[in-house]
């Protein structure tokens, strides 16, 4: 199971309190994680990536295994410890004031 941790505002929007667990067949990529996440929680569509272009929103970051994965290809396999669930994929609101 791949684990995803959402920022507080998106947890509130999706009405969840903890992590999200997703059962994904390999290869597990950013795109497949987000596809599954948005299928499970349709209200998250457009909040992490643009609905038209599919591009990551400017102030969203993806972290895993202490690495910034934000600028990796959305179709690149995520680190093994993320895909196995040993480490979560962190969806983070960037530091941008507010």
């Amino acid at each position, binding site marked *: 199971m791949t684990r995803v941790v959402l*920022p507080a*505002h*998106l947890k509130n*929007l999706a009405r969840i309190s903890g992590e999200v667990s997703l059962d994904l067949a390999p290869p597990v990529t950013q795109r497949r994680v987000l596809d599954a996440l948005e299928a499970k929680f349709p*209200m998250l*569509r*457009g*909040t*992490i990536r*643009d*609905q*038209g272009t599919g591009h990551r*929103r400017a*102030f*969203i970051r993806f972290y895993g295994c202490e690495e910034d994965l934000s600028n990796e290809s959305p179709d690149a396999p995520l680190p093994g410890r993320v895909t196995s669930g040993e480490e979560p994929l962190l969806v983070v*609101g*960037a530091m*941008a004031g*507010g």
Partner: protein
Amino acid sequence: MSRIRVLVGTRKGAFVLTADAKRQDWEIGGPHFGGWEIYHVNGSPADTDRLYASQTSGWFGQVIQRSNDGGKTWQPVGNGFTYQGEVGEHLWYDGTPRPWEFKRIWHLEPVPNDPDTVYAGADDAAIFLTTDGGHQWQELPALRTHESGPRWQPGAGGLCLHTIILDPVDQSRMFVAISAAGAFRTDDAGNTWQPINRGLQSGEIPDQDADVGHCVHRMAMHPSRPETLFMQKHWDVMRSDDAGGSWREISGNLPSDFGFPIAVHANEPDTVYVVPIKSDSEHYPPDGKLRVYRSRTAGDEWQPLTAGLPQAHCYVNVLRDAMAVDTLDPCGIYFGTTGGQVYASADGGDTWSPIVRDLPAVLSVEVQVLP
């Protein structure tokens, strides 16, 4: 006895304020969607418990929320705002072409007879429509693709479509206003649009007769006189008596004719309210005195309304969407400030008192009279 519900959008959430028809003792509900910018909350005239809210964030984008129980509970609905066809370009601040880019919904305008049908005004400027309660949104592209569109340029707040007025008599007629493109009218339910800016004088643009480029801050209409429009422009308060065909200035004796909101008394179509602001670079009241000005003559002659409002050291602003009137008799007037106060007058503006003082900066105020 009727009840009143005031819908307040702020920089950090939405609030629902309720009172009975005396409008003295208020209950404060919220924040809803805490931490998000709420540009507008509006209720359906056809079902006062049906509310829509525009919830936005620089991080997470646009969400539309819907309530079926007067704001007690909310459900996110559709947020797919896609420009139709070729996106095209407008002018950027530096005069270069820039592709249209959706940023947020500024204004939500439910139609009078169907709680599921709502118009939405966007930044970058466009108008969208839902007929299924907000699940699906469709652009009416003729406005954005108007031949003048490539000459539209954003104001300081963006290229925002902030005003939507539905003609109460002619259902195919609608007025919109865009900063800083100007005002537009459709007579065929959005299939074609015409600029209605003749007579506006704007020192910020070189050609005073230009059909677009005027920075309209807000327009208002009384439902009994759909040919008469009132406008608070960047500078100047204006009136049209021919559905926007021509405009004349009605600033009269105002201490400053810069400002953002404008509203019409619900029961007196010649009574108009504005909040003068010192200047385009000093967005606070002249002399530090928060004064609403009322004209009972449809403009030109204005009187300051000060009872209950701070008359010293007040440096808040009142934004364009942040004033509303109820339909009771006497008419109630409401406005919110960037300092987080929401003021109410239950006597047409003669006296004021704060409903609440310390909200986040207020972006929008709407009011409903509940059965």
